[in-house]
């Protein structure tokens, strides 16, 4: 999406200014964490309930992979940290939506039964 990639490139601009440091450790842990956060989001059904947020997370993760392969470790670290939090957000949104839908379904069901009850009471 045009807008999300503009946002991402804006963040990359900001990060680029700090990537010139030498001796930066490889962000292996952060990359692993963001990967598993993405998986968790997918398992939670984020592709259905929070597709845009999931997409953002995936795009950032892809950028993080790319930065890592170019040994831009600080950039990679921050991108994967953001990807992780984006994925967590997608997961939380999905979970919240599912619970909300479940509540609404039962509410509706109770309403229907009550209406039926009132209707047969009037007979």
């Amino acid at each position, binding site marked *: 999406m045009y807008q999300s990639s503009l946002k991402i490139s804006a963040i990359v601009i900001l990060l680029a200014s700090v990537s010139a440091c030498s001796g930066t450790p490889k962000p292996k842990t952060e990359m692993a964490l963001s990967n598993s956060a993405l998986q968790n989001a997918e398992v939670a059904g984020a592709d259905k309930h929070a597709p845009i947020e999931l997409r953002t997370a995936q795009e950032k993760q892809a950028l993080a992979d790319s930065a890592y392969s170019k040994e831009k470790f600080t950039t990679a670290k921050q991108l994967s940290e953001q990807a992780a939090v984006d994925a967590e957000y997608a997961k*939380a949104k999905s979970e919240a939506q599912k619970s909300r839908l479940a509540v609404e379904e039962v509410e509706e069901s109770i309403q229907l039964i009550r209406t039926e009850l009132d209707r047969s009471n009037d007979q």
Partner: protein
Amino acid sequence: MNKPVLTMIPVAAVLLLSACGSAPKKVNSLESARTAYLSASKNEVVVKHAAKELDDARNAIAQGDLVWKKEGKGGMAEHYAYVASKKVSIAKLIAQRNEDDARLESMNLERQRVQLEVRSQEVDRARQEALDLQNQLEAMQAQVTARGIVATLSDVLFDIGEASLKSSAMTNMDKIANFMRSYPERQAIVEGHTDNMGDDDFNLDLSRERAFSVQSALVSRGIDASRITTRNLGESMPVADNNTADGRQKNRRVEVIFPDVGTQVSELAE
């Protein structure tokens, strides 16, 4: 939706350029994150369900503050602000989800309760219907038989040797008419029977006329004539011994039969 993105880029440019000069006093996004965090941390529900995420947010803000203070690096501070505000949003969603899950439990119980209410109402209704039917059958002095519900009108209800009904039979007619009004789906077969004494033709005529009398009495009480069929069986179906006076009187009767709903009138053998 375009606006915030476009404003980020000039801000970024400002931050990049200002790395050499005096930095602005605050990072807006970090301040927003801080405000959001403070607000969420005052919410009991959020604290209850998402303390960890709130802590993560607080740590991110602290790191952003540190980086900004020590190195004046706007880009890094922006990054921590981003993480912090996302964590706050996550905390709020977690809280909402937990609250809904709790609600769901109590609502499922409520649904069960209402379903039980419906069921018990159905039971009460069925019981009442059975009671009503029982009462009506008793009023008509009717029996439940294989042919259906049978109300017997005895010889004494008719004038002797006549088809006309006595005034004492009027309540019987009322009760039968009541039953037919209460159960509009029911059809009636009015059967005339006689004993085996006397002239066969006379007996047949009499039993037929008596059946018609009963039919008329019901129609005059507002029952649709199409619901009533008459049959004339003469002496062919005695219920008692024709050799005694008592038995013969028992055989001189009119039966009003209400077949079970769903049975065709013609299905009942003559």
